């Protein structure tokens, strides 16, 4: 068990290291932020700034010292901001986490209910109707959904705020916008996973024991569909939640999505780098938790390692 976690952490470290390298390469290819920010300064002042931020050293040396810094939690200074890059990310992170977890929870609950219902009543007219509706939902981009929601509930009806993160109410619309396509994707995944399980031999045996479809789906289907689904979702988390960035921009939530866009525009690459690395770390941790969760419920995995 301990060895297993160690191996997984080792793989995770490799991924994080890769993210550090990629973000470093991208940042150095973008040129130095001094030139991007200060167009009309004297050569002397430019040289002084370059030296101050360490941009006058060779690339490899900068890379080594960057990796060394990251290992100590130092992602370098943020250009034009008194705090370090990591601090800025840390300030933004809670907003994003609230948004992401609220959307995940909402979407999961709805998906669980609708997929289970669909699997029990599979082939029925309601099932087909719900399924087609979800296909349409899946095709709605988050920012368009967000703007339509703003138009309806903020502009026309005036019920909810459309911009900023001022209180719980200001999260309602962003969470809905982020959840809509997520609900569709999760429902489809869970439903196809359930149907996969329900096609297995042992399900015929369950029917042969005289169990009802409802019993079969609830007592056996979900239990079997769970582990592969958790694994899959954890792996695809980044892809599923990419829309968070856009939703934050649309609704003016000061999370890391808004931060990465503004930092990129300002060529504040230290912040962009920090965000890429922090996201990768989050991904690795989440996958580790998902793995442990699967081990907890699946006896086969438990005994295999």
């Amino acid at each position, binding site marked *: 068990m301990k060895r297993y976690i160690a191996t997984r952490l080792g793989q995770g470290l490799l991924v994080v290291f890769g993210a550090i390298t990629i973000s470093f390469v991208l940042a150095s290819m973008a040129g130095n932020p001094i030139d991007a920010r200060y167009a009309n300064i004297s050569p002397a002042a430019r040289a002084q700034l370059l030296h101050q931020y360490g941009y006058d050293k060779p690339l490899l040396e900068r890379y080594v010292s960057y990796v060394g810094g990251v290992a100590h939690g130092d992602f370098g200074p943020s250009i034009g901001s008194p705090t370090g890059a990591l601090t800025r990310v840390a300030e933004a992170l809670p907003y994003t986490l609230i948004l992401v977890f609220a959307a995940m929870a909402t979407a999961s609950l709805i998906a669980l209910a609708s997929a289970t219902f669909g699997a029990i009543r599979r082939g029925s007219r309601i099932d087909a109707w719900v399924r087609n509706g979800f296909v349409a939902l899946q095709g709605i981009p988050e920012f368009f959904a967000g703007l339509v929601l703003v138009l309806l509930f903020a502009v026309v009806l005036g019920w909810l705020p459309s911009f900023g993160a001022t209180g719980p109410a200001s999260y309602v619309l962003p969470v809905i916008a982020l959840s809509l396509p997520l609900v569709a994707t999760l429902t489809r995944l869970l439903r196809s996973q359930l149907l996969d399980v329900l096609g297995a031999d042992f399900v*015929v*045996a369950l*029917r042969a024991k005289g169990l009802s479809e409802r019993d079969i789906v609830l007592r*056996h289907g979900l*239990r079997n569909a769970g582990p592969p689904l958790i694994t899959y979702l954890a792996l695809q988390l980044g892809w599923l939640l990419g829309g968070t960035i856009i939703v934050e921009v649309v609704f003016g939530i000061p999370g890391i999505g808004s931060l990465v866009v503004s930092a990129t525009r300002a060529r504040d690459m230290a912040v962009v780098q920090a965000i890429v690395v922090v996201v990768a770390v989050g991904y690795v941790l989440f996958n580790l938790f998902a793995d442990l969760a699967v081990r907890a419920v699946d*006896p*086969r995995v438990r005994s295999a390692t």
Partner: protein
Amino acid sequence: MNGPCEGRDVTVGTVGGGVQLVEGVDLAVEAGAMLGIVGETGAGKTVTMRALLGLLPPGVRAHGELRVNGDVVSLARVGELRRLLGSETSVVLQNPVGMLDPMVRVGDQLVEGVVRKGVLRPADARARAVSLLGQMGFRAVEHVLTLYPFQLSGGMAQRVTIAMGMMPGPRLLVVDEPTSALDANVRLEVLRLFKRLAQEEGTAVILVSHDLGLVSHFCDTIAVMYAGRVVEHGPTRELVARPAHPYTVALLDASATLTARRRVPLRVLPGAPPRPGHWPAGCVFAPRCPHAQERCVAERPLPTADGSRGWACHFPRIEQA
């Protein structure tokens, strides 16, 4: 005393009547006895059994009757059949390991059906599970109950699934292609244990198999199916010794046995069994039959009874009494 369990005039086809899968099959098996159903791919063995149990896939419908323990149920009423399933009727499917939910302990799976169904109370169900596993030859029964399916060998899984089929104390138990993946010695032991158990409990057993040899050793009676029909049935010994239907004869001839001679070709039946939807008019076996005559092609033979035996052939290979 229980009467025989019977399937009468079992007819199965796709909804809308596109393709017939089984036509007019009659089967009967006494309490405590074992009936073997043999036939090749597409003969309709499994479909017939599923029709009796109410386990046909969607899009397929059955007619006919099931008689069990004094009840007479129309095969068209799947709800009724499903009500009986897991109490009066029960089944052991092929592929024993795949038949168990991989995420649930063996003990819970044994008990689940009868408890949910209200056949037994939890404590009684557990006691019965313990006793059945014991009768199926397990020693450390309590330990087996706590195992997960992946921890069982093929032979163990087969014994567990048989115990699972016997849990409700069914009047009729269908066993589909049992033990086909097991080694000879394991298979022999499992089937012996099972046969004794079924006899003790007075369960009528239908054993579905493509293995004529296996069936001839374990079953009291045999029904031979071909292209959705029973072409011949009768007591095992008589049927094997004096087959009446040319298909039965061919099947017996084609079997490679230990008494065959080295490098002497087997007597083969040309061609392959017809697929459902491609049954010939007249006698379904006529196109492959070495003795077919004009009448066979034109006219479908009706089942003929002769004491405990019966066949569907215009020109049976034995003298009629």
